[in-house]
């Protein structure tokens, strides 16, 4: 598909993209540090990924292959409309395959397929400031970052353990980047948090409403906060993916009927599909001959 | 050995709320007390006996003169000593007993009595042992020892205060009417305590009004004439 000539490549004008790239460069230079930028109006409301879209618009090139995921799926409304938007604004090729993509914009998940050097992962971020829940003043949180005053972040984890017996923070798990800046991972499940650590891809984070960009350059140290006697742990599921049998991916619970029957399936549709193509089977997979007949 | 040496002490009170009226109380007061002496101040009411005791204790600040007290092997002027020195002198060398107990909320009787000895550095068991001994002697019923004295009778509070005053065995003791309103038996117990302290070598200055006690404890009387009020 070719780009709509009525718009500049990537929707934003070149000056704006330059401003965004400067912010991104600064963010890459100071891993985990939130760089303010002049967020623009996008043809989507805040909360629908405007921060991620601006970052994507600033880094996308004509040769890029774009993948957009929302909750692990390429086919949700949000993913579809963002993908369609960039197709029209840039004419770049799109894909649902993690391996084939050069640029991936995501909401709520990190792909299961390990990322490669040269790939860029753009996160949509609703609230970038990890200290906001305890300190409403921006002036104060900036000082806290400047002085690495992060001890209080453990208060939240302490409360989790006191109430639930374990750290119950399941999404947007707080991490310390490069031993220096406290960072929010955006609302990805904590299952994905370890994937940020030493990842060979470039990871960029954009918050449109809050006007902040931050980044993890390739191979950056990312450490989840925890207690010595309550170490960070990821989720586990009682059974493998019902479709592909995967035991190493993030599973969504699907209720099958009103008798309480349920199944667990990969949230990453691309990963699940790739495994099934490779011949992996799960509990609910159709018989092989039937599938072969299709 | 000279323990107290009051020299040319001059004390007036300026009452700013009474238009700056000046009340002279002590003029050119001298008093020297040796170890093992018990000096009883004598004079009409208003002669400044209590004021002198309080000035020696460092509680009242005189206009001029010196109050030298033996402390740490030397003589220290409590008039010019800084607050921390005054606290140190009081903690280790100087005791002051009135008939009024300043009650500290919730602190049990035994600990109130033991506190000065603890502050002098004694171990808790030793301090409590000495406190118990004094309470026993002053006939405070044992069942009261663990209670704060706030609700006790006036006589009991007074005797607890005396026990507290004698607990630390200070080398210098100032007594302001320690036996006032005590019955005869209790008064004799207190006289016994004063006598023992003196025989141990304490220098004592006392104000007492009843003749029996005065005769019993005084090794010397120090007369204090009344000053003419000169407002």
């Amino acid at each position, binding site marked *: 598909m070719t780009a709509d000539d009525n718009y500049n490549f990537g929707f934003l004008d070149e000056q704006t993209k330059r401003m965004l790239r400067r912010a991104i460069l600064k963010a890459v230079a100071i891993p985990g540090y939130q760089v303010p930028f002049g967020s623009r109006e996008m043809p989507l409301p805040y909360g629908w990924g405007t921060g991620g879209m601006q970052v994507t618009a600033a880094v996308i090139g004509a040769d890029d292959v774009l993948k957009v995921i929302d909750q692990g799926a390429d086919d949700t409304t949000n993913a579809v409309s963002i993908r369609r938007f960039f197709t029209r604004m840039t004419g770049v090729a799109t894909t649902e395959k993690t391996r084939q993509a050069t640029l991936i914009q995501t909401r709520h998940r990190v792909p299961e397929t390990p990322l490669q050097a040269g790939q860029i992962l753009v996160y949509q971020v609703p609230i970038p400031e990890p200290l906001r829940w*305890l300190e409403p003043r921006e002036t104060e949180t900036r*000082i806290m970052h*400047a*002085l690495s*005053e992060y*001890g*209080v972040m*453990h*208060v939240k984890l*302490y*409360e989790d*353990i*006191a*109430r639930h017996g374990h750290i119950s923070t399941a999404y947007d798990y707080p991490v310390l980047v490069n031993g220096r800046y406290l960072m929010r991972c955006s609302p990805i499940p904590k299952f994905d948090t370890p994937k940020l650590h030493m990842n060979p891809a470039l990871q960029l984070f954009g918050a449109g409403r809050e006007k902040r960009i931050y980044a993890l350059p390739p191979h950056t140290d990312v450490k989840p906060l*925890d*207690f*010595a*006697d*309550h170490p960070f742990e990821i989720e586990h599921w009682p059974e493998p993916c019902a479709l592909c049998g995967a035991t190493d991916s993030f599973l969504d619970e699907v209720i099958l009927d009103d008798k309480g029957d349920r199944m667990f399936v990969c949230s990453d549709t691309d990963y699940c599909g790739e495994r099934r193509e490779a011949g992996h089977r799960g509990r609910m997979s159709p018989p092989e001959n039937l599938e072969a007949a299709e | 050995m000279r323990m107290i040496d009051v020299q040319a002490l001059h004390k007036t*009170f*300026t*009452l*700013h*709320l009474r238009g700056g009226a000046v009340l002279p109380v002590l003029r050119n007061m001298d008093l020297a007390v040796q170890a093992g002496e018990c000096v009883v101040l004598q004079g009409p009411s208003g002669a400044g006996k209590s004021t002198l005791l*309080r000035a020696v204790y*460092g*509680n*009242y*600040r005189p206009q001029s003169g010196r109050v030298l007290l033996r402390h740490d092997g030397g003589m220290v002027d409590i008039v010019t000593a800084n*607050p*921390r020195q*005054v*606290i140190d002198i009081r903690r280790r060398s100087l005791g002051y007993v009135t008939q009024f107990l300043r009650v*500290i*909320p*919730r*602190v049990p009787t035994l600990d109130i009595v033991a506190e000065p000895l603890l502050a002098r550095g004694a171990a808790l068991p030793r301090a409590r042992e000495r406190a118990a001994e004094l309470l026993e002697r002053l006939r405070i019923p044992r069942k009261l020892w663990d209670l704060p004295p706030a609700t006790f009778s006036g006589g009991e509070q007074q005797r607890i205060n005396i026990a507290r005053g004698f607990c630390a065995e200070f080398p210098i003791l100032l007594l302001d009417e320690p036996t006032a309103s005590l019955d005869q038996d209790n008064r004799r117990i207190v006289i016994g305590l004063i006598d023992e302290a003196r025989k141990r070598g304490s220098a004592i200055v006392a104000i007492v009004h009843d003749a029996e006690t005065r005769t019993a404890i005084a090794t010397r009387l120090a007369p204090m004439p009344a000053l003419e009020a000169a407002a």
Partner: protein
Amino acid sequence: MSALEMPLLNVEGINKSFGRQQACREVSLELWPGEVLGIVGESGSGKSTLLKILAGRLPADSGFIHYRSTEEGIVELLGANEAQRRRLMRREWGFVQQHARDGLRMGFSAGANIGEPMMALGQRDYGHLRNIAKDWLRAVEIPEERLDDAPRTFSGGMQQRLQIARNLVTHPRIVLMDEPTGGLDVSVQARLLDLLRRLVHEHNVAVILVTHDLGVARLLADRLMVMRRGQVVEAGLTDQLLDDPQHAYTQLLVSSVLGV
């Protein structure tokens, strides 16, 4: 001179104005290890402003605050950089506010409130944090079962005791207190005063206590400073100052109170 014979804090010539109103005028003081210094005066006397300046919560117009820290030697706090000042405050100072809600995180549990200063200093052992928090609840006479309850479910007296525990848990050398018994009923006050008196002695912490209540000052303070219109009008031993006040204003203060 040994460390014990030197002041912890040496404050010289603090001035502070709000427009034409001079809240602190050439205020100087010394604070020695383990002593309680009371600052008394009416509201508007500048005592709370002074406390805020000492705590670094308000900039002074001029003056010096020399603090003898355990690890960093003598530091002039007004000229120190923010990072160093905040680090020293966190490690070696405490601040007890008049209203417990200003000094506590009301939505978090009592345990988290006591644990937070320790976590801020790097304590990362949950079990240890809880044990220390329990010890401190006991020390301030709050039932251990309340460990996981939020302070907003506590009485005023309990909240204030919790705030004191939170401030002492890191064993600070100086604790600033702003009317710590201010909003409490008289019976609750007595308990708090006794507790404060005991804890301050046990932990050998130096305290600057701002209060308008001379009874509180008499019970807790070794020394007093009387402030009026931003100036120190009289200073000395607590009992000297209350029993033989020299300055007209101190006499007025003392005469306005029954049986101090």
